[in-house]
């Protein structure tokens, strides 16, 4: 039943996906000759515009285009990017792997670290440890992500020369292969990952801390303690699993938005991910690429919501029964 609901949602989204980009003023042709505000030495005449619109199938009636789009999707064809002049699917896959790598690794780190630190803070509520953690997590993580990224670049790359200023790998590294390549990729990964971890840490940390504090006051925890169960076992086995319930939802939502969530960091570090791709596609009114990108984003959001729903039922008996 729930899965059916999700399928209907997906269909509605698919249609919005088609119509919304086309409702924006402007069309894909203005960016075809390059960025019109900086180069584009050539002027499109009306005749050339007509030719180009026909070539890209943009002068067909909207209903026909919509039909083509749905039929293409059903056949697994995401279309052809006008701005990049390449198949949308290969563009998306090429970028997706970097975004998943960057935000996936960052997510593992900030989720683990956030839960760990949150639990420690809750356990030591009001002590120096708790206050120290609160202050340091927030002072590091409350910068806007792009500003934090710039600071990291200026300090680590410009002053220390320890890390590259951007990109995902060095030119030529792709052919080098082997261990050298892994090292190169990690070298480029470190600063953007650090920015992401620092930005996302406070949320998870605070949520865990508060949730744990709530749970630690519950009767069953008091009961467990009074049964003489050792403290760290009370924490890990009795309190934490229940405290994690709201955190699971938050994490699922963050994962769902992971594709666009890294955009600012990608821009600052010129990291070749999905965020910058979709942003550029929007500026260029590249309809096929926008459609494909949004589709992928939606699929992520829907998938992780569904996963959270199912996981929630497994974790919390009350939901399962309802």
């Amino acid at each position, binding site marked *: 039943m729930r899965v059916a609901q999700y399928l209907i949602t997906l269909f509605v989204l698919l249609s919005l996906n088609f119509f919304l980009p086309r409702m924006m*003023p402007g069309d894909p042709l203005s960016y075809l000759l390059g960025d019109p505000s*900086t180069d584009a030495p050539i*002027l499109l005449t009306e005749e050339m515009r007509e030719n180009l619109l*026909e070539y890209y199938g943009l002068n067909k009636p909207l209903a026909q285009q919509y039909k083509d789009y749905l039929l293409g999707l059903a056949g697994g064809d995401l279309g052809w990017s006008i701005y990049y*002049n390449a198949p949308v699917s290969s563009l998306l896959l090429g970028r997706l792997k970097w975004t998943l790598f960057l935000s996936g690794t960052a997510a593992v780190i900030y989720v683990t670290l956030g839960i760990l630190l949150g639990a420690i803070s809750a356990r030591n509520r009001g002590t120096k440890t708790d206050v120290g953690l609160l202050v340091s997590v927030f002072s590091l993580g409350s910068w806007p992500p792009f500003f934090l990224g710039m600071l990291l670049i200026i300090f680590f790359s410009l002053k220390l020369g320890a890390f590259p200023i*951007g990109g995902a*790998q060095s030119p*030529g590294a792709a052919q080098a292969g082997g261990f050298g390549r892994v090292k190169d990729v990690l070298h480029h990964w470190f600063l953007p990952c650090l920015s992401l971890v620092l930005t996302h840490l406070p949320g998870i940390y605070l949520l865990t801390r508060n949730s744990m504090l709530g749970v630690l006051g519950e009767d069953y925890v008091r009961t467990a303690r009074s049964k003489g169960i050792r403290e760290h076992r009370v924490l890990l086995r009795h309190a934490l699993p229940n405290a994690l319930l709201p955190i699971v939802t938050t994490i699922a939502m963050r994962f769902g938005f992971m594709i666009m969530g890294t955009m600012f960091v990608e*821009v600052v570090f*010129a990291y070749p991910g999905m965020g910058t791709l979709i942003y550029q596609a929007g500026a260029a009114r590249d309809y096929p690429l926008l459609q494909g990108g949004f589709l992928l984003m939606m699929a992520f959001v829907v998938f992780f919501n569904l996963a959270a729903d199912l996981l929630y039922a497994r974790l919390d008996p009350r939901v399962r029964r309802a």
Partner: protein
Amino acid sequence: MSFIFDTLTWKDEEGVIPWLADNWDVSEDGTEWTFTLHSDVAWHDGEPLTAEDVAFTFDYFKQHQEAFKWFWPMDKVEGAEAMDERTVVLTLTEPIASCHEALIGSLPIIPRHIWESVDDPAKFTAEEAVIGSGLFKLVEYNKEEARYVYEANADYFKGSPAVDTLTFIKVENEALALETGTTDYASFWGKEIEAVRELEEDLDCQHIEGPSFWVLQVVFNTTQPPFDNVNLRRAVAHAIDRAKIVEQVTHGGAIVANLGIVSPFTDWYNPNLPAYEYDPAKARDMLDELGMTDLSLTLITTGGFAREAELVQADLEQVGIQVEVQAGDQSTIDGLLREGNFDLAINGHGGIANPSILRTPTWPASSYNNEEYDSLYQEQSRATDEEERREMVWQLQQIIAEDLPVLTLYHPKMWTVYNPSKLDTWFYTQGGVSLGIPIAMNKLIFLER
């Protein structure tokens, strides 16, 4: 593209020079061109480049012109024929003005043995698509990271280039990339003058200043009131302090623009245009005379020119014109301009080294209609005599300056900042590279001359 592919002729600091063609003859009426090709030129895959390839190229581009992003006047090409191994005759339906820039010196010659079987050139992305005859071979093109890696073509017919590997990468902050040594070259323009000044302190970098082939302008919607009235446009021209905008917004990174659009850095520039000196009192008098003392308008622009828009707004307010500024992204502005859905717009474009940009003085909308102007434009585009053409291009500029479909604001300057220990032969090409691209990276800088 000019690194991988060659053209029949090319340009240096001074002007047109022979390239794939050793020499050429033009018929009296300018419609028949005979080229004699350099011998022993080879494609990257070792095949010889012959007259057949050149003839094929003209025919192929004519057949597929809608698929190419760059624009050559292929509708004026009748056809091309290979007379022998080294001789090609190109026939035009009518003469093309500045034919070297427009066609001969910018159309890349492509290998027949690869392209003759390709039906949709825009979607041909196989490895062979980048086989050319140029001084570099493209060895890596990474779409995800916007990275191009070129390797020297050691067998190049003009000699092996001075740089073995040339890599283009995308960075967020070009000044930072130069400072950290990540890159050895970057170009800056207009407001970025601050970055150039800062890099000047950095002893490792040098820079050269280039011409400006770009213009920022106030576009009037001449199709509807109130700006269908030329006297109102002239009043606005007197009300806006263009010099102040150059000084306060670009901090000296630009020059006050030619009111006739064409770049002052070219031979086409007409220096004798009416001036519309800044004079708010005069502007107010003109508005009184028009009976337009209570105007309220919208001005559209992109976020990048918000400062300029504010200054224009303030200047117009001084003479009693209320202006509401609306900012959108570039595609939005283009859309509104095309629909004619605006009063005033601040928008810019390049390509002003070449008079063919004057096709319609508004950009990108073709809202301005003036038959005299249009026929003059058509006439100059057929002119083969440079002097005659210049005369007509000057007249076009005169009309723009008098009729003011647009009020030009400024031409941003350009700088190329580079690391001289890697390469120090940079120069700006007269009239721009290829179709007029104002970069200091002419392929000649890599060759011994």
